[in-house]
Structure formats: structure tokens, C-alpha cells
């Protein structure tokens, strides 16, 4: 069952990758003409051009064992070597922050839920979860600019400069995990094994951490792939707004979404690089998917009982 699921996931991500390649090599040549000083645009789609683009790419990959050349001198792999580590640092840090802080926030929420201070636990999680992620990011950046101007969020020279982006990126996924943890733990409430454990004289703390949480880890960690997706989409915004030179930033540059168009302008659309970066991100999502599948298969201590 596990092998089948993993194979299915692998197949699906390959299909997504192929779709991205197909979209990227769509003919993009725009004809800009000046007719009596007025710019006119012509775009004509031809299957021949499309086929030519795809053929060129595949032959290049097969012959040179490389995805292509960016800006005329660096290969895609070399460019990735510069930009990807910057993003990887942020992604991995954010991933661990979201899982661990999320777990503790979830447990905190659960503990508050029976008290009067419930608004501090589930209340804050509910409200912050409902606020759009970009607003949270903007608020974080604005707070740092106004109240902590000594924190260098726009610079990237030091080894520790990945920490602030990682924290900003991880706010939203953290609360996601917190919400899942607190609902999962409260679902366990009232189960017989808890009464048994309590009747043996274990403390509440022991019951919570040793018994209840162990039953929840599988379900909580099965959301890893969603957390990774949240992290990557937040990373795109954080790197763009902070000017943090990582893979997501480079991806947006490679898309060359520009609002200004001039006659004779060279289009800087770097298709090969987009494919490279998308591939790396997809691999990350795939890894998190594997973690999720493994977690839901092997972490639940009751997994053998139902058979």
C-alpha cells in the first residue's frame, strides 16, 4: 500500500513536471510593430515553433547533460548552486520551526481550551489563521521596520540572515500545525486508554505527552506536504518583498514579468532556469510527501490493531 502510494505520488509529480515544461516552452515571441508611431502587437501561435522549442530543449539536455545556459554564460546548474542554498536554508529552518513550534502551540491551545483563557489559545490561532498570509508578512515587515530598525532584514551578507525570513515564512504553517494538533488531541479526549493510564496514577503531563500525543503524531505529520506547500508559497512573497536573493526570487526574475515593453526589447524569459527551479521545488514537495506517507504508515502505534 505504501509503495503503491509513493509510486503514485512520483508519477503525479512527473506529470506536473512535464506540464510545466510544456507550458514554459510555449512560443512566446511577440511581434511589436510601429505603425505610424503607434505600437501594435501581433502574436501568432504555430505548432511548428512549439515543436521546435521542445526539440531544441530535449536535444540540448541529452547532448550536454545540462538544462541549458542562462544569460549566455552560466549553466542552469551553476545558477542554482548560487541561489538554491539561500532558499534551502530558509525552507528547512521554516519547516522545523513550523513543526515544533506548531506542536507546542497546539498543545498550549489544547490545555487552554478548558480554561477561561481559551481566547489566548484557540482564539489567537483561529484569528491569525483567518488573516491572509500576505497581510501577516506585510505586518511583520512593517513592525520590524518601524519598531526594530536595527534588525537588518533587507541585507543578506551574514550567515544568519536567513533567520528573519525563515521566521516570517513559518508564521502561517506554524498555526496550521497548531490547529491540527489541538483538534487531534481533543479528539482523543474521553478514550478509554486515557482513563486506564490515569487510573494507574500517571500525571496528566505523562498521559498527554506519552499516550495521547503518540497517537496523534502520525496524523499531524501526514500534513507535512501541505506545510511544505504553504512554506514555498510564502517564501515566494517574502523573498520578493525583502529582496532576499534566493531561488524563489530568481524564479520571479526568470519569469521576467515586466510591465514595461519597448520596441526591439529582448525578452528575458529564462525557460530553462524556470524548469530547473520548479524541479527543485517539486523535489522538496515530493520529499515532504514521502515523510507524510511514512508518518501516516509507521508512526501510529495502533496501526497493526485494525488488521
Amino acid at each position, binding site marked *: 500500500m505504501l509503495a503503491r502510494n509513493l509510486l503514485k505520488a512520483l508519477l503525479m509529480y512527473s506529470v506536473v513536471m512535464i506540464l510545466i515544461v510544456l507550458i514554459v516552452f510555449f512560443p512566446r515571441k*511577440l511581434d511589436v510593430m510601429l505603425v505610424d508611431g503607434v*505600437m501594435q502587437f501581433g502574436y501568432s501561435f504555430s505548432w511548428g515553433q512549439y515543436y521546435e522549442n521542445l526539440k531544441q530543449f530535449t536535444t540540448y539536455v541529452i547532448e550536454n547533460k545540462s538544462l541549458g545556459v542562462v544569460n549566455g554564460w552560466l549553466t542552469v546548474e551553476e545558477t542554482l548552486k548560487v541561489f538554491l542554498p539561500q532558499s534551502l536554508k530558509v525552507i528547512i529552518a521554516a519547516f522545523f520551526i513550523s513543526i515544533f513550534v506548531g506542536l507546542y502551540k497546539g498543545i498550549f491551545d489544547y490545555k487552554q481550551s478548558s480554561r477561561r483563557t481559551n481566547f489566548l489559545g484557540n482564539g489567537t490561532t483561529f484569528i491569525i489563521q*483567518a488573516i491572509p498570509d500576505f497581510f501577516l508578512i*506585510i505586518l511583520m515587515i512593517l513592525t520590524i*521596520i518601524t519598531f526594530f530598525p536595527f534588525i537588518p532584514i533587507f541585507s543578506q551578507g551574514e550567515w544568519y540572515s536567513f533567520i528573519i525570513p525563515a521566521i516570517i515564512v513559518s508564521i502561517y504553517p506554524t498555526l496550521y500545525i497548531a490547529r491540527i494538533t489541538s483538534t487531534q488531541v481533543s479528539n482523543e479526549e474521553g478514550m478509554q486508554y486515557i482513563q486506564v493510564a490515569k487510573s494507574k496514577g500517571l500525571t496528566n503531563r505523562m498521559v498527554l505527552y506519552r499516550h495521547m500525543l503518540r497517537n496523534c503524531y502520525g496524523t499531524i505529520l501526514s500534513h507535512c506536504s501541505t506545510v511544505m506547500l504553504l512554506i514555498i508559497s510564502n517564501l515566494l512573497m517574502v523573498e520578493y518583498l525583502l529582496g532576499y536573493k534566493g531561488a524563489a526570487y530568481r524564479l520571479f526574475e526568470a519569469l521576467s514579468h515586466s510591465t*514595461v515593453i519597448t520596441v526591439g526589447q529582448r525578452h528575458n524569459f529564462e525557460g530553462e532556469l524556470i524548469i530547473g527551479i520548479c524541479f527543485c521545488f517539486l523535489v522538496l514537495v515530493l520529499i515532504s510527501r514521502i515523510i507524510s506517507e511514512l508518518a501516516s504508515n509507521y508512526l501510529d502505534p495502533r496501526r497493526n490493531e485494525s488488521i
Partner: protein
Amino acid sequence: MIKEKSFIIGASMFLFLIVVMIAGPYMPFVDKEIKEETLRMEDGFSRAPFPPSLSGPFEPFGTDMLGRDLFSMIVLGTTETIFLVLFITMIRYVIAIPLALASIKQKGPFYWILTSWNNVFSAIPTIFSAIILMNLPFFIFSEHRAIIVIVILALIEVGRVGYIIQQEGYLVSNELYVQAGITVGNRPRHLYLNYYLPALLPSICTNFFMDLGRVLLLIGQLGLFSIFIEQSWIQLSAGAGEIQNMSYNWASILGETRTTIRKAPWITFFPALAITFTILCFYFIGEGLRAHFTRKQRA
């Protein structure tokens, strides 16, 4: 009557939005026509953007880089934003519901389409697929760009929405009363209309409001990357021109964020606040409906 607290909060927030939509343009401090004013000459020269001020020129939200009053822009943009979101979500559901109903038995070509649609688009972040698809060349200069973009944004998440409805429908199809309905000899059409749909309607309603929030979130994110829904081409000189945003919908005001966030944070803050308010409103309504329906089911 729905008495959930969060529904009442959400509904009153929505009522406020409707009041702004209808009465907004007639309010005395809202400019009916947005004026550009890049330079002001009061005690020396000052250049736009102007910070928020309550006296002098009444500009509680400040102005943007062109000196346009943000408050008026946001008030005038309410109608457009809400209708845009409604329109996208409605297209999404109009496609997703029939697809989900057709694949309720978890087999057949429709089920295959639905699951692969869901799988493909849930493999990469939504914002990601939206950016890549909206950057296709024939959409940028198409005459019907706005319509095409709306359809793309609606289609991206059809798989997810359809899959949720389908999963719930599958559970319903195993219920005894549905089996009874089949045994009695109902026609498929009758079965869908009188057995499946009424059972699915509560969750469709709840998810619809949740989705309104998600769509607005997506549009906001796109706006942040200065990818607009309605845009037009302005030629600035003999051989150069610029794609400009032609509407006052809130997401498009966010387009300048990256360059202005350090210098004039209010340009970003207030449209984002308006978007957040609306998303919270939809979220509260959705949560309220969910709580209401679960309580009704238990009773």
C-alpha cells in the same frame, strides 16, 4: 434562524461592506472622480505620496505615488472587488458541482478527471500555477484578458472543490435512505436533485464562503506581484509603453508594494487591511454556517 456568534459577526461585517458599496460613492469625503496630484505647494513643495492626514485635505489613508486619495480608491473599488471574487467563485462551483455529482460513485472518466485535476494543482502552490498560467503570452495582450484570467483563476481550484464535494457525496451515497431511493426506482436525475443535493447543500454553502476568502487571498497575492486582472496598454513614447492597472480593485493597489513598503507603508497597509477585513468576513460567515449545520445535524 442562524444564531451562531461568528455568523452574526460575519454577516454584520458583510452588511457594512454592502453599505460601503451602495452609499460609498455618495459620501461627502469620497471623491467621485479620482484626481492625480503629484505636487503640492503648501509651505514649500511636497511630493506624493502624502501620508495619512485627517485635516487639510481629508485623506485618512494617505495617497499613492500619483497623489490619488487611497480612501476614495478603496471605497470605489469595493463593488468591483466583491463582484470579481463572487464571479470567480461562482464559475468554480458551477463547474465543480456537476463534475463532483457525475463522479459520485468513485469510478468512470469524470472521477478520473476530477482526481487528476485535484492532484496536479495541489502539487504546486496555487499562487505559483496562477503566475505561470497568467504569464502565457496570448493572455497578456488578448482583448478578452479579464474574462480569460477570471476563468483561469476559477479553473485552478475546481479540482480541489470538486474533490471535497465528491468525497462527501460518496459518503451520502452509502447511506441507507439513498439505497432505499435507488430500490424504489428513482431516476438518476431525481436521485441527484432530491437525494444527493439536499444532503450536500450545507457543506457546499459553507465551502462556498470559505472559497470566497481563498479567491480574494489569491487575487491579493497576485496583486502583490503586480499581476493585475484588468490591465491596459498605454504607449508612453514612440517605441515604449507600459501595462497599467486600470481599475481600483484593492488587489491592484497592492502592486506598488515592493517599491513603496519602506518609504510609504500606508500604500500597502490600507488596501491589505481592506482585503483582510473582507476575508475575515467570509471566514466568519463560513465558520458560523459550519457550526450551525453541525449542530443541526446532531439535534
